[in-house]
């Protein structure tokens, strides 16, 4: 198309820089691709512009998520900065088509009608213009309060936009109700316009904030976030599904099947051209998961339970336990139920894990687990503990844990607290870590993925904070 203006190029470079600062890996070749793409795409179309950048720069669903956040933030700020610098009011297109007196006459009802139509059609640029008009109209009525949130409320009420309202007769003339998503899109435009006007009034941009870590942290609060938890786990599920297959790319150490090699060499006149290998038997791990469901980790336990849920889908040989003061096996619950909320209810109702106080008793849990289950542990077992190691001052009984870890092949500990808080207060993490093959903090999705990589690959050295495996015998 036309030549890219130099200001544009700088903008895009700045945008890429911003993406990099949010940990999206962008190489120079990718930036070149982006520019080449923009040369041939009609980039004046907002959607084409955005998609061209996205396809060349963001190369995983996660990157794409960050891309969208940064894109909105960056180009919103960029246009604002530009409009502060140059003369305000660069109205074009639809807005210019409406002369001033027409706009003056545009009644609220007509406006509401036009907005309804634009929302129904999903026309983004029309919505944008109309949002601007709506704000203007409200400004004329002298209702503008100067606070974005308050104005939003007023305009929304004035236009009578709600998913299934029957307030005004003529609003329903189209015969169909607007669904919530479409209205949300219009409101996003509206909010953005309001912010834009505020920036113009104040003549400066609010400070840029990096995407907070929380934006990417594991969603742990409240039942309504369950869907988000599952989304985070869904990716892990796919990874786990391939688990138990051979570690990839390791052809080393394969043994030659002499018999089949000789047989196939007959085809080539007795010259063994093709070596035949013995097939590898994939390792089928047995996994034991112990999950703390006490109040001190209540926010995390929803998440952990859904991890358990996901694990059950992926492993045939998985036994799960929940514990507070006592331990209780819940494998059957997961086998009988598919629905997560039902599982969570059943576990809290019938788990029978809280005795009197409701405080975690790690010592008792280890002793019970050792007494009941350890006979089944063997060289193929992996034990995973999900808990914060806060004993409420009770004895940690690390020797019982050590015996469990000794019987199992590998033992991992996932702690929902940042590593910084370990061993503060009643946390006795350090008593257990020497016996684990790896202890991980686990409060972000990355942590979880890192852990899955470890379990899948069998590499521990790189990740675990502690790698020393307990050697039996010297403690008791």
């Amino acid at each position, binding site marked *: 198309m036309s030549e890219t203006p130099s200001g544009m190029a700088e903008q895009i470079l700045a945008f890429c820089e911003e993406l990099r600062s949010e940990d999206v*890996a962008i*190489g120079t*070749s*990718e930036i070149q*691709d982006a520019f*080449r*793409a923009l040369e*041939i*795409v*009609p980039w004046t179309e907002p*959607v*084409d512009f955005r*998609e*061209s950048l*996205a*396809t*060349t720069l*963001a*190369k*995983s*669903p996660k990157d*794409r998520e960050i891309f969208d956040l940064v894109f909105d933030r960056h180009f919103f700020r960029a246009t604002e900065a530009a409009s502060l610098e140059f003369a305000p009011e660069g109205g074009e297109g639809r807005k210019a088509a409406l002369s001033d007196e027409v706009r003056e006459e545009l009644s609220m009802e007509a406006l509401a009608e036009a907005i309804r139509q634009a929302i129904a059609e999903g026309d983004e640029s029309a919505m944008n213009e109309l949002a601007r008009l709506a704000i203007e109209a409200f400004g004329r009525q002298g209702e503008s309060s100067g606070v974005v949130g308050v104005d939003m409320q007023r305009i929304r009420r004035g236009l009578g936009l709600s998913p299934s309202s029957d307030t005004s007769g003529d609003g329903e003339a189209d015969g169909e109700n607007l669904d919530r998503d479409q209205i949300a899109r219009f409101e996003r435009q509206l909010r953005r316009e309001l912010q834009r006007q505020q920036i113009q009034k104040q003549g400066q941009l609010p400070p840029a904030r990096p995407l907070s870590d929380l934006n990417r942290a594991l969603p742990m609060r409240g039942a309504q976030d369950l869907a988000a938890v*599952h989304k985070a786990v869904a*990716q892990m599920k*796919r*990874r786990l*599904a*391939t688990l138990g*297959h*051979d570690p*990839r*790319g390791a052809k080393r150490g394969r043994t030659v099947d002499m018999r089949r090699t000789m047989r196939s060499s007959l*085809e*080539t*006149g007795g*010259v063994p*051209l093709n070596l035949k290998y013995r097939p590898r038997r994939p390792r089928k791990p047995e996994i034991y998961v112990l999950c703390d469901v006490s109040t001190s980790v209540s926010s995390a336990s929803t998440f952990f339970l859904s991890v358990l849920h996901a694990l059950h*889908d992926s492993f045939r040989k998985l036994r799960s336990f929940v514990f507070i003061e006592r331990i209780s096996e819940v494998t059957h619950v997961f086998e009988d139920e*598919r*629905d*997560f909320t039902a599982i969570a209810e059943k576990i809290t109702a019938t788990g029978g894990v809280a005795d009197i106080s409701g405080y975690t008793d790690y010592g008792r849990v280890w002793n019970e687990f050792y007494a009941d289950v350890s006979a089944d542990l063997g060289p193929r077992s992996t034990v995973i503990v999900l808990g914060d190691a806060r004993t409420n001052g009770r004895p940690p009984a690390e020797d019982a844990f050590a015996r469990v870890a000794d019987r199992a092949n590998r033992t991992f500990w996932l702690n929902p607290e940042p590593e910084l808080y370990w061993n503060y207060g009643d946390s006795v993490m350090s008593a257990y870590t020497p016996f684990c093959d790896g202890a991980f903090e686990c409060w972000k999705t990355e942590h979880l993925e890192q852990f899955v990589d470890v379990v899948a690959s069998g590499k521990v050295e790189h990740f675990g904070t502690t790698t020393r495996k307990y050697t039996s015998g010297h403690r008791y």
Partner: protein
Amino acid sequence: MAATPQAVPRSPAEVAEALRDASYLADDSTALIAFLAQRLGKPVLVEGPAGVGKTELAKALSRATGRELVRLQCYEGLDEAKALYEWNYRKQLLQIQATASTQDEGATPVGMGEIFTEDFLLERPLMKAIANPDPVVLLIDEIDKTDQEFEAMLLELLSDFQITIPEMGQISATTHPIVLLTSNNSRELTEALKRRCLYLWLDYPARDREIEIIRLHAPEIDEALAGRLVDVVDMVRELDLKKPPSIAEAIDWARTLILMGADDIDEKVFRESLSIIIKHRTDLDLVAEKIVPRLGGSGSSNGSSANGAG
């Protein structure tokens, strides 16, 4: 279909139009990326859940551009002998024996140049795509199933469209193939591979588009029923299933409904045809419990019993 193989599209809209003619309804970003792939000559990495039409996109592109489709299905343990080329050992051996018997005993042995020529080369899909005199569409399906070494081997092909055979030298593509790689995201692909590709995330289509798709492939279905079907399929997809229904299954279901002569999806019809879209026993239970009561009609009490689903 109408386009000649050499034609280069001028705008994303044109690509979308061509894909539509090849009975594939692409959304804006898919059309845009297909357009970019042809104009920039870059491979496209397509990711997304199973059954959203990743492979179908490649087939449609091949139909739309009039190019031949060369497909390489990846699996664990795939190596270059099966993907690139292989020497035809038997033929080489015969050649050696044949020349040895015709010549006298003191004659010079068969030279390397005589048995390492194209006559003794078995072309595998990637080689075929490169060596083809006409431009092709190359589909490398489920790249995430292979191991990292194989990915590394692809790099030369993807960035320069050439293959190096030690005994013969480089073979470069005479024409630019359109390359599509699909992945179900079962493992993270290497940065090096991603850097060479455009990225397209395909997701389940929006409601209106899916209705359109279904009506395109099952034209006999009436609009109201198609809408109802898509709504139900959407509901099912929202559950946490082992295998959510794909677009292809939704189309199959639409065809089934036509054959059944159903004009609405009520509890009875749903139960009878459920197995078209749900293919896991535990999923069947979950769907019977969650979806069936929401279908309305007679709110019978056996909504929670699972055995009626099969």
